[in-house]
């Protein structure tokens, strides 16, 4: 019906505003606000129990917020006329009937959503599940289940994709596939919001991150910016047979120098070219000189430290 013709307000932006969910004993999400831009992959990060799943479920009208709003392209999910044509969601690995075949699982959804049933086979092909189309869901491996979930999300060719830990259970090849798949979707201008615990993967995948802990927003922004804002800057690793000499020279240049167990020097306060110059001036032989940037994992751990995970 509304295929291809989307209203101008439907830009696919996700806006979460003052979102709160109070369960009996725990405030799972606490006055959370952030936005997710179209055309980018946004990583949604937080320790176990931070409230990621609860937030995504409120965004999708599965859980009723205690307070606040969440909109997709300016609309509440419940107000979308053809939700699957706007938003695709992958929420948990095991969400199909064990005794139903993969293709039938998708056909059931097509029927309810008013999509042509041919979409079922197309979506299966998209995620590489065609060979297992007529096998029952209970015989699927974890990664196959995950792919079926993605196929279901893609049935309506949606503008916005929301995925809760989609990499769960995928093998390295599968994770690589997923990375390419999601990046490509974002490249086509779609909004991709994906929660994950695999921070090294997120560093490769995400353009933006939203980090929450204890139900509250900790930081939101482009990955590079979030990483750049860290107190610890880049570190220089140096291996040399004349460690003492170089240490003395660097300390003279107001750098701080640590030594790790292997005898590698870890230099803070100056950059790699400065270290190289100092070594040359002191006539020190270098075997390795590299810059160690803080990775997303380090940043994440620093940002969420002390903001208790499990509640």
């Amino acid at each position, binding site marked *: 019906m509304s295929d291809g013709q989307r209203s101008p307000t439907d830009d696919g932006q996700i806006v979460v505003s003052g979102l709160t969910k109070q369960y009996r004993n725990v405030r799972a999400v606490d006055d959370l606000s952030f936005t997710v831009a179209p055309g980018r992959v946004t990583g949604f990060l937080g320790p176990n129990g931070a409230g990621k799943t609860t937030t995504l*479920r409120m965004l999708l009208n*599965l859980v009723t917020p205690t307070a606040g709003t969440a909109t997709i392209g300016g609309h509440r*999910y*419940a107000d979308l006329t053809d939700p699957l044509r706007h938003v695709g969601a992958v929420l*948990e690995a095991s969400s199909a*009937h064990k*005794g139903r075949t993969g293709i039938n699982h998708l056909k059931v959804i097509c029927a*309810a*959503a008013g999509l042509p049933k041919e979409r079922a086979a197309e979506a299966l092909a998209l995620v590489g599940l065609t060979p297992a189309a007529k096998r029952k869901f209970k015989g699927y491996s974890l990664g196959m289940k995950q792919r079926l979930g993605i196929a*279901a999300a893609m049935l309506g060719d949606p503008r916005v994709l929301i995925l809760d830990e989609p990499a769960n259970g995928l093998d390295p090849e599968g994770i690589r596939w997923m990375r390419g798949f999601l990046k490509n979707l974002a490249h086509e201008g779609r909004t991709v919001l994906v929660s994950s615990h695999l921070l090294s993967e997120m560093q490769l995948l995400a353009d933006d991150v939203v980090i929450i802990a204890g139900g509250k927003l900790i930081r939101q922004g482009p990955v590079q910016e979030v990483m750049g804002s860290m107190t610890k800057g880049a570190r220089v690793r140096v291996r040399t047979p004349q460690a003492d000499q170089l240490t003395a020279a660097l300390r003279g240049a107001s750098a701080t120098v640590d030594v790790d167990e292997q005898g590698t020097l870890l230099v803070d306060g100056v950059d790699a070219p400065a270290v190289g110059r100092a070594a040359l001036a002191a006539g020190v032989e270098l075997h390795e000189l590299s810059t160690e940037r803080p990775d997303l994992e380090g940043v994440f751990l620093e940002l969420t430290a002390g903001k208790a995970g499990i509640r």
Partner: protein
Amino acid sequence: MNLVRSELLKIRSTSIWWILALIYLPLWGITLFFNYIQSDALVNGDLGEVPADQADTFDALKDPDALAANLFTNGQFFGLMMVMLLGIIVVTSEFFHQTVTTTFLTVPHRSAVMLAKLVAAAGLGVVFWLVTTAANLLSGAAVLGAIGVDARYTGAVWEAVGLNGLAYLLWAILGVGLGVLIRSQIGATVTGILLYLGGSIGAVILISTLAGRFGDWINNLQLLVPSLASSLMVSGTDDLPGNPPQWAGAAVLIGYALVAGVVGTLLVRKRDIS
């Protein structure tokens, strides 16, 4: 309509319908056998000294219309249980297999989903009745022939058959309501069966004990027990002595089905799916 189609596909694409049919088939055969014995005894058997106060009842049951109605609604007792279970499973399997998330993502209007489930379950109940009735018309005619009674197809008989269909429809709806109230697949199934079997047998004993003590008006209370209300609803003659009228059974059952459907829908609308 799309939604109902989807709900029907959900059932067709799993093995539940033929499992229920396989369980039902021998039960249907057994009730047919007992109905044959009973009809034969009523018509040809020597019932010996019938106590004066029950003579009316026997006469009413011996009426050819009543015999035909009974045979053409054969299997009702277990058939209703099967469609109730089907109704239960239509709802609880969504929670059991966690497909409810996908279902409500696809259609956020939960009342519409529930309505589709009610319609699909009711429709399947009717299909169940159609198949059973077709089998009953054949086997019933054979039984009547065997005991030497002319097969009768009077208005009263068709009325009983029609009301039997209504009972199948209503019990499917009752099952859906029960499934929403008790989301656990096993919990709802066990509760449903216990209520259906234990409830009706227990109620019969209780009510007849009470009636013996406090007078016949207590018999009217059997209306409040859904399974008794439905068997009353289809009993072929309007005037089985000492029983409440047929239509009252129908009214009570419709009432239960409405309450189950509405309460179930309201509950689902607000519930957090997590």
